[in-house]
């Protein structure tokens, strides 16, 4: 009975997002919009990956649709998605009460901690392609992993100082938990105020899952994907090459040098790689080599970004 009662007052998917954004905005976070290039995780958005570099304090939060073509299941698996939504919170430097703040954010979305079991279990995060890693926990709520909580230690192969606290909420999982549904597609995304009619996650997103799974697994043209990858890579490398001339640039040219553009090109390569991987077009032997190529781009961009920051600051 209690479970049912809870379900009634559970937040919709979009209210969940509103509440978390409000919560972190009230604690000084700038709310950024989702990044408009394909990424596999919120961490890869420049708002995390690049802003964690350097000494400048940052508090930022944003929802980030995250694409992982290999995780697609044509919409047939109730728990797995090609594209899921993360809410990413970046706190640099991490406040002393960061864990308590996080727990308060759970209260803010209607999770009464006194009625649930919460555990912080060791789970370290790393993204070798980005030369990035951190230590932290997966936060388990009644046996469900709802958040990845990381103290970022290195990024782009560089030590961070100050380090940064990163909180990544899995919004579909949390919504499924709050609404007590067994399938992601049954999550109530919104309720029409006039009619009370429920709009489900499936209505909004199932077609995407079906079509993008089919594209990634069956239709994507392997030869063209490789071409895309090579072109993006070549352009990114070209920019990185030009960045070697920082010392000769005047202040304005330096400030306008498109490191951010280079980063987008690197992210495009990463996405092409993920598509090729889902398509089964990358043998294990090739895999290491291609990952090394993308690492060169991503880490290269991070280094240039840091150098530009230092140079512009004078």
């Amino acid at each position, binding site marked *: 009975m209690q*479970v049912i009662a809870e379900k009634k007052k559970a937040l919709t998917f979009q209210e969940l997002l509103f509440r978390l954004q409000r919560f972190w905005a009230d604690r000084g976070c700038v709310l950024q919009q989702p990044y408009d290039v394909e990424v596999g995780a919120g961490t890869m958005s420049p708002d995390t990956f690049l802003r964690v570099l350097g000494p400048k304090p940052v508090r930022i939060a944003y929802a980030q649709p995250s694409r992982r073509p290999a995780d697609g299941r044509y919409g047939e698996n109730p*728990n797995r998605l090609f594209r899921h939504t993360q809410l990413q919170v970046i706190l640099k430097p991490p406040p002393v009460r960061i864990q308590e703040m996080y727990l308060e954010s759970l209260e803010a979305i209607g999770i009464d901690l006194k009625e*649930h079991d919460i555990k*912080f279990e*060791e789970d370290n995060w790393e993204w070798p392609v980005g030369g990035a890693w951190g230590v932290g926990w997966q936060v388990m709520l*009644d046996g469900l992993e709802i958040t990845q909580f990381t103290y970022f230690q290195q990024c782009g192969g560089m030590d961070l100082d*100050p380090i940064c606290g990163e909180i990544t909420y899995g919004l579909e999982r949390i919504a499924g938990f709050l609404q007590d549904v067994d399938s992601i597609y049954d999550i109530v995304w919104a309720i029409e105020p006039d009619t009370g009619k429920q709009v489900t996650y499936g209505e909004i997103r199932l077609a995407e899952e079906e079509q993008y799974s089919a594209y990634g697994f069956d239709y994507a043209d392997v030869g063209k994907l490789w071409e895309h990858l090579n072109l993006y890579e070549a352009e990114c490398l070209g920019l990185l090459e030009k960045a070697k001339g920082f010392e000769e640039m005047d202040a304005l040219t330096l400030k306008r040098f498109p490191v951010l553009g280079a980063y987008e090109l690197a992210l495009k390569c990463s996405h092409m790689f993920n598509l090729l991987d889902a398509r089964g077009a990358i043998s294990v*032997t090739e895999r290491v080599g291609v990952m090394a190529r993308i690492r060169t781009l991503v880490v290269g961009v991070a280094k240039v970004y840091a150098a530009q920051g230092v140079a512009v600051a004078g």
Partner: protein
Amino acid sequence: MADFLFEIGLEEIPARMIAGAQAELEKRVVGLLERERLVSGGVVSRSYSTPRRLAVVVEGVTARQEDVAEEMLGPSAKIAFKDGVATPAAVAFAKKAGVAVEELKTVTTAKGEYLAAVAVKAGRSAAEVIAAELPKELAGIYWAKNMYWRAGRPERFVRPVRWLVALLGSETVPVEFAGYVAGDVTYGHRVLFGEQPVVVEGPGAYVGALEKAFVIADVEVRRQKIRKALDRVTRAGDAGGSGLRWREDHGLVDKLTHLTEWASDRSVVMGGFEAEYLELPEEVLVTVMRDHQSYFAVEDKDGKLAPYFLAVLNMQADEAGLAVIRHGNARVLRARFNDARFFWEFDQRTPLKARVELLKNVTFQKDLGSYAAKAERVRKVAAGLAGLVSSRGCGLDAAALDEAVVLAKTDLTSELVKEFTELQGIVGGLYARAQGFSAATADAIYDQYLPESMEDAVPRTVEGAVLAIADKADTIAGMFGLGLEPTGSKDPFALRRAANGIVKILAETAVALPLTLAEVAAAATDDEAVVAKMRAFFAERLEFYLREAQGQAYDVVKAVLAAGAEDVRDVLARTFAVTVVRGGGDFVAVSAAFKRMKNILTQAKEKEFAAAEFVSADLLTDDAEKALWERSAELASEVAVLRSEANYHAALELIATLRPQVDTFFDAVMVMAPEAEVRANRLALLREVLGDFSGIADFSEIVVAG
């Protein structure tokens, strides 16, 4: 005298690291107090931990170090005094030592006369010493993975430090670490108690104060409470009285003990899942529950898996609250099982046979090629070993073995193994069974990775054992061929574990495998140099096995291995026999005599005294040497018979009966006789005796007491 309490409060420490860190903190604090003469005698200490704290209490710490008198050496007397008058050198030294010039004395050292002073080093207070020294100990604690958290990266620790408590009796000790100064305030359970501070009155009040704040600091108490709660909740959940039990899992109990701060009868929930999931193999269900959800499996009175699970909470709640938590956990488990079922069904669409082709795309090692290439190599190794085994009368289904080798790695391409990597091999075995392969094939695939540790079981069947040995030997041979041998603490390909596995299989299978380590090495590669390296590596692993897994004494192992290190079961039998007889008086005496013989032969060699090619009876002049020669010849043939029957115990007892002849020989005979011929003959006698009786063990290696 007062007790000392120290607690360091942290954000959640990884469960796997807590026990080691707790023990290390206790050792470091006790060590510090001992070193600084703040405790003496049998120090009584206790330590505590939860995910958010490590703590130690040491009893009977003195308030202040005793003063110590120390003799200091100064300048040479010649320089210090000129004509009986103190020079500036003497004055400076007196000042440094804190004494008057008149109190300086002269001492004689190897270098001549020097000034000396007895300086009294005033003892410091315990609080002062602890505040100064403890931070260094904290900084020295070993963590498998560290982090920085403060700007400027002033310190690394496992997780951010959040508070410190240091109390000497009721007085706080201002220990400073990671930006905190220790006080008397700790914190309780995050949810059950909240963020308000908990004041600790003194070391004796620590455990009680925390208990009121819903923290059980004593790990063993928590562990027992969890076990009791598991018992009680399982009983309560067994409404039908069908004898349900939670499945014992010490590793999981340990993990959960280190994931919780509190435990009570109301902090365990038992939930159920739909019986239809029981159609999935038990191995898969248990792995999902244990490794992915930290749940205990439940079994019925026959040991069969029942459709229930037990979750241990870092929480307690009333019935209604537990119902909500139970519901949430069951929901997650159902989703996990659904995933596993999806993978299982999906995988069946591509049978193992069709996956053989896919192995070409899975790299085993970049220079050794794919798993398809590995399978082809292992096929040859296994066939070679199987030929030897069956030619020696050990029954084996060669066709089933070959089929198992071909299919062994195909499960690496399955979704289930990609999701649950710890089930590699097991999944292949289960799929083979489901797809109609023989039990011999399926079981061999299932057991191929055994044993994964010294405590693990070995394969159940001969086919499984041969597959496991061939697979591991191929890996070792391949890596050695590339020059990737383990060095020091570095063994990235776990080759030591692989070789340990081979030794353990040869030693422990239910049906003895008639194979030597040399044969395994020779079957694995044609490269003679690699074979030689592998044999040396196996010998080292065999020694490790005898000492670590079998607990045999160092000298016995060395003695036995000197007499042959290829046939593992034979080595084991000889080791046990030597261990049994080694304490006997005659055996000790004979061992000592053999050692002496060996030394004499070595010395003779150094002096370039040659031994005769064989012993000539007519050159034996002394009765004692004749007696030794005759008796040892008699014994040698009897010992040889016993050895051939592997009756090592009786053989060793027989060798020990040689004692009277040996003793008399050394009393009466001088081996290094002046006459070259006699000397050469006697040396030959010693060589023969040693040779005849060193086939079980080289007794000269046995360490004789006294």
